[in-house]
C-alpha cells in the first residue's frame, strides 16, 4: 500500500505543492486507515490463530493423549510389580525399561495437553476418538488392559508364576497399546502426537518379540 502511494505523492509535493490537493490527502488517509485495519486484523489473527491450530477438547489428539496416558499408567503399574518381585534379571531389566519409558511418555502427553490449555482428563468414553470403537470398553478398561482380578493375582504371584503372568499380561497390554497407537498415527494431524504414537508402535512391537522369547524361557524353566 505504502509503496504505491509514496512515489507519486513525493513527486507532487516537491514539484507542485498544490497539485495533489485534497484527493491525494484522502487517498493517504485511506491508505493509513487500511494499514491500521491490516495491523488490527493481523493482531486479531495472531490472538485467535494459535487457538485454532491447537487441538480442541474433543479432538482426536486430546482423546489419544488422555487414553494413552491411562493405558500407559497401568503398564507402569504392572512393570513396577515385576521389577520389585521378579528374580529373573532379564525381566527386571525389561520391567525397568517399560516403567521408565512409559512414565516418561505420560509426562510428554500430559504436558502437551497442558500446553493446549486442555484438561488432563476427559469426560468422553475411553477411545471414543476412534470411529467404530463402541463396545470395546469392558468395565471401563481399554483393550489390552488387565482386570482388577488379574492385577491382584499378579501382586500375589512369585517366582516363575510372577514372570509368566507379568509377561502374558504385558504382551496383551502391548498388543492393545500398539493398536491404539496405530490409530493415533492414522487419525492425528498433530506432529507431536504422530511422533510419539509412531515411536510407541515401533518400540512396543519390538518388545512384544522380546516378551515372546522371554515367555518361552520362563515357561520352560
Amino acid at each position, binding site marked *: 500500500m505504502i509503496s504505491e502511494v509514496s512515489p507519486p505523492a513525493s513527486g507532487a*509535493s516537491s514539484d507542485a505543492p498544490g497539485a495533489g490537493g485534497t484527493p491525494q490527502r484522502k487517498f493517504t488517509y485511506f491508505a493509513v486507515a487500511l494499514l491500521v485495519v491490516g495491523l488490527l486484523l493481523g493482531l486479531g489473527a495472531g490472538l485467535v490463530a494459535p487457538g485454532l491450530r491447537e487441538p480442541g477438547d474433543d479432538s482426536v489428539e486430546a482423546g489419544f493423549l488422555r487414553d494413552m496416558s491411562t493405558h500407559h*499408567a497401568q503398564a507402569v*503399574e504392572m512393570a513396577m510389580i515385576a521389577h520389585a518381585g521378579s528374580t529373573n534379571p532379564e525381566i527386571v531389566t525389561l520391567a525397568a525399561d517399560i516403567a521408565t519409558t512409559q512414565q516418561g511418555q505420560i509426562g510428554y502427553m500430559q504436558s502437551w495437553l497442558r500446553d493446549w490449555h486442555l484438561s488432563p482428563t476427559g469426560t468422553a468414553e475411553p477411545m471414543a476418538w476412534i470411529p467404530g470403537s463402541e463396545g470395546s470398553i469392558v468395565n471401563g*478398561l481399554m483393550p489390552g488392559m488387565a482386570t482388577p482380578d488379574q492385577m491382584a493375582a499378579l*501382586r500375589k504371584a512369585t517366582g516363575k508364576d510372577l514372570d509368566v503372568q507379568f509377561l502374558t499380561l504385558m504382551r496383551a497390554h502391548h498388543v492393545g497399546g500398539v493398536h491404539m497407537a496405530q490409530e493415533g498415527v492414522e487419525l492425528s494431524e498433530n506432529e507431536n502426537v504422530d511422533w510419539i504414537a509412531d515411536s510407541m508402535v515401533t518400540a512396543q512391537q519390538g518388545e512384544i518379540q522380546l516378551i515372546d522369547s522371554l515367555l518361552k524361557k520362563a515357561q520352560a524353566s
Partner: protein
Amino acid sequence: MSTPGPERVPSTVKVGKTTGQGKPPAGKSAANRPGGNRPAGKGGKGKGRKPVTPVKVSGGRNWGPIAVAGIVVLIAAGIIGYGVFASVQGSKPWEEQAAAIEGVVDYRAQKNAQIDDRTHKEGQLTYVTNPPVGGAHNATWQNCMGDVYTQPIANEHAVHSLEHGAVWITYKQGLAADQVEKLQTKVEGKEYTFMSPVANLDKNISVQVWGYQLKVDSADDSRIDDFIRATRVKASMEPGAACSSGNTSTDPVPAAAASAPATE
C-alpha cells in the same frame, strides 16, 4: 506511517482544476483513486485531460472508502474481542470451576495449617474433617489406579493419594448396592480415582481431592461428575506423581516406631 505526514502540509489548495495540469505522476495518483469509471488508472498521462468531473465525483464519493474501512475495523475489533473473550473463558482455572459447584467446601481457602500439612508421619493420625481432605500422612499412598476397595481404608494412606492428585470417592458403609455400583462406574479403569466405604460418614457420599470436598445424598447427583471433571489430576500437589506402586491392602497403618512398644 511518517511518510504521509509532510505531504499533508502543502496540499492545502482546494479542489479546483489543479489535478490535470500537474506532472504526470500527480495526475496518475489522482486518476487512480476514484477507481470507478477508470478501467486502467495506472496508464495515467492522457487521462489527466478531463480533470473536473473525476475530482467532483471523488469529493462526493469519499465516504465509500471510509465506510468500508469502518466496517472492516468493526469486524477486526469483533475478531479480537472474541479471541480475548474465548481465551479468558477457556482458561478459567480448575480451582474456580471446583469452588463454583454447589456444595463444594474449599478447604484450601481456609489456610488451616493442619489441613495444609504435607509432611510424612508414621502411625495413626487424626484429621480435621471426616473423610480427611489433607494433612500429614503416611509415606505410602493408597493405590489409586481406579481401585475399588470394599472395606474402609487407612486415612493416612488415602490422604497421600489425594496429594498425588487422586479423587477419593467415599460412601457410608452399608449404602445400597445399586448406589455403590453407580459410584463404581465412575472409578473403574480410571487412574487417579479410588473409592472405599467409611464407617461414620455424615452423608451418604463424600467425594474429595486435596483441599476440596463435596458431600451429596445420591450417586445420581450430577455434581459428583462435575467435581471429578474439575479436579481429577489437576488437584495434584505433586504434578506427575503416580497412583500405582501404592498400598493395596485395607489394613490400618502400623503404629509409629517410637510408640510401638507402648501400643498393642
